C-alpha cells in the first residue's frame, strides 16, 4: 500500500497549482506522472460497464493508446479494471500478443513498449485506470512501483474530491466535458442496437469491428452512423 504521506504530497503538489478543483486537475496529474516517474506518457481514464472515457492524457501517444484499447475492446486497462489489480507489462512486444493480439501491433506502431495499468478504486467501486507507458522495454523497480501506486491512489482521491461538493447525480465539469466528447459514440451504439436488433453490448462490438475494418477511429464511424451514411441493418 502506498504511504498516506506520499499520496498527500502528490495531491498537495497538484492542488497547489490551482486554488480549487478545476477542469485542469486530471491534466496536472498525468503531467506530474510523466515528470516524476520514469515513463514516457500517462493517461487517466474512467471505465465502467457502459463505457470508457478518457479524462486526460499527457500527449498524443497516450491518447492514441487509449483510443486503441477502446477500439479493440481489450488491453491492460480493461484487465486491470476488471481484476482490481495492476497489470504490469514491461515488454509488450514479448508478452502482449498472447493476451491482447489486436492491441499489441497497434501499440508497437505508436512506439509503446512498456505498459503499466493501475486501477482506481474505493473498496468495491472501480472508477477507472491510470495508464503509464514507456517507449523502451523495462520493469518498474520497487521504488517506481510504490510511486506509481501512490499516483494511482492520488488520482482516485482526486476524482472523489472533484465530486464531493456536488449533489448526487451531478458531474464535475472536468469529468463531464471529456464524457461529452464521447456522446456520439454512445448514441451511435443505441442506433446500431436498433438497426441490427442486438443488445447495446453487441452493438458496441459491431461498432468496434467496423472501425477496425475501415481503419477509422471509433468516434469517426460513430458520426457516420449518426448521419446515416453508415448503416447496420442488412
Amino acid at each position, binding site marked *: 500500500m502506498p504511504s498516506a504521506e506520499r499520496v498527500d504530497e502528490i495531491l498537495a503538489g497538484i492542488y497547489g497549482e490551482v486554488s480549487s478543483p478545476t477542469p485542469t486537475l486530471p491534466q496536472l496529474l498525468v503531467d506530474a506522472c510523466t515528470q516524476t516517474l520514469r515513463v514516457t506518457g500517462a493517461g487517466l481514464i474512467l471505465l*465502467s460497464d457502459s463505457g470508457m472515457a478518457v479524462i486526460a492524457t499527457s500527449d498524443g501517444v497516450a491518447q492514441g493508446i487509449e483510443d486503441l484499447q477502446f477500439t479493440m475492446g481489450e488491453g491492460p486497462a480493461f484487465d486491470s479494471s476488471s481484476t482490481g489489480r495492476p497489470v504490469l507489462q514491461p515488454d509488450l512486444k514479448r508478452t502482449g500478443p498472447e493476451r491482447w493480439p489486436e492491441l499489441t501491433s497497434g501499440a508497437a506502431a505508436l512506439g509503446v513498449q512498456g505498459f503499466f495499468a493501475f486501477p482506481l478504486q474505493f473498496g468495491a467501486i472501480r472508477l477507472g485506470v491510470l495508464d503509464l507507458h514507456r517507449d523502451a522495454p523495462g520493469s518498474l523497480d520497487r521504488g517506481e512501483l510504490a510511486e506509481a501506486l501512490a499516483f494511482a491512489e492520488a488520482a482516485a482521491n482526486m476524482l472523489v474530491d472533484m465530486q464531493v461538493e456536488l449533489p448526487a447525480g451531478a458531474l464535475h465539469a472536468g469529468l463531464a466535458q471529456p464524457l461529452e466528447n464521447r456522446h456520439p459514440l454512445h448514441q451511435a451504439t443505441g442506433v446500431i442496437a436498433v438497426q441490427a436488433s442486438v443488445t447495446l453490448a453487441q452493438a458496441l462490438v459491431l461498432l468496434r469491428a467496423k472501425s477496425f475494418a475501415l481503419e477509422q477511429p471509433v468516434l469517426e464511424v460513430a458520426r457516420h452512423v449518426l448521419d446515416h451514411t453508415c448503416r447496420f441493418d442488412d
Partner: protein
Amino acid sequence: MSRERRLTEVFVEITNSLVDDFDVVELLQTVVDAAVELLDIDAAALLLSDQRGDLRGIAASDEPARLLDLIELEADDGPCIDSFRNGEQVTNVSPEDADRRWPRYMPAARSFGYVQAHALPLRLRGNIIGAMNLLSAQGRDLAPDDVIVGQALCDSATICILQDRAAHAQEVIAEQLQGALNSRILVEQAKGMLAERSSIDTEAAFRAMRQHARGTNQPLRAVAQGVIDGAILDLGRVRD
C-alpha cells in the same frame, strides 16, 4: 506473560482489524477487554458517538458495566459524559467530588459495586468520538502508567474508527460518481435508440425523453432505462 508483551499483542490485534473486515463492535470489545486485563480496574465500558453526535453504549467487559453505561446515558451525568463533552481525561476524582459532579451516576455505580469511576476520551485532535469508562470496586487511584496505557488503547481505536469512516465516506462518493457517469452514458445510448426507432434526430429524442420524464414524474435515467429495456418504444413526435 509480561504486560509489555501482552500489550504488544493487543495493539497488533487492533491494527489488524483495519486490514481484515472492519467491525467496530469487535474492535471496541477488544479494547475494553484489554483494558480490564492490563489495567488495575475491574470493569470497562465504552460509549461511542454516531455520525449525528449521539452517544451509544457499544461495548462492555461485563453486564453490570454495560448497564451502568446505559444508566449514565439516561442520567446524562457521569465521567464518560464529561470526558466526551470536553475531550479530557477524567481520572482519580475524590469520592466527595464524584458525588458532587455526578449525583445520579455515582449512586448507580455503587449499587453495582463500583466505588470509583474514571473515563478516557476517544479523541484525535479536534475529533472526539466517544469515551471509555474504567470502573474500580477497590477505590484505588489509577497509576500514571495505567492512564498512559489506557489512553493508548483509546487512541488506537480512535484512529481505526476514523480511518474506516473516512474510507467509507469516500466509497460512497465514488459510488455516486460511478452512478452519475453511468447515467450519462445510459441517457446517450437511449437517445440513439429512440432516435432510430422513431425516425427522429437525437435532439428530438432527448426532448421527448425529458418531456416523458416530467409527465410521468420519473428521473431521466429511469426513462432512459425504459427505452433501453424496450418498455418505452416510441415517445412519438415532440410537441414544440
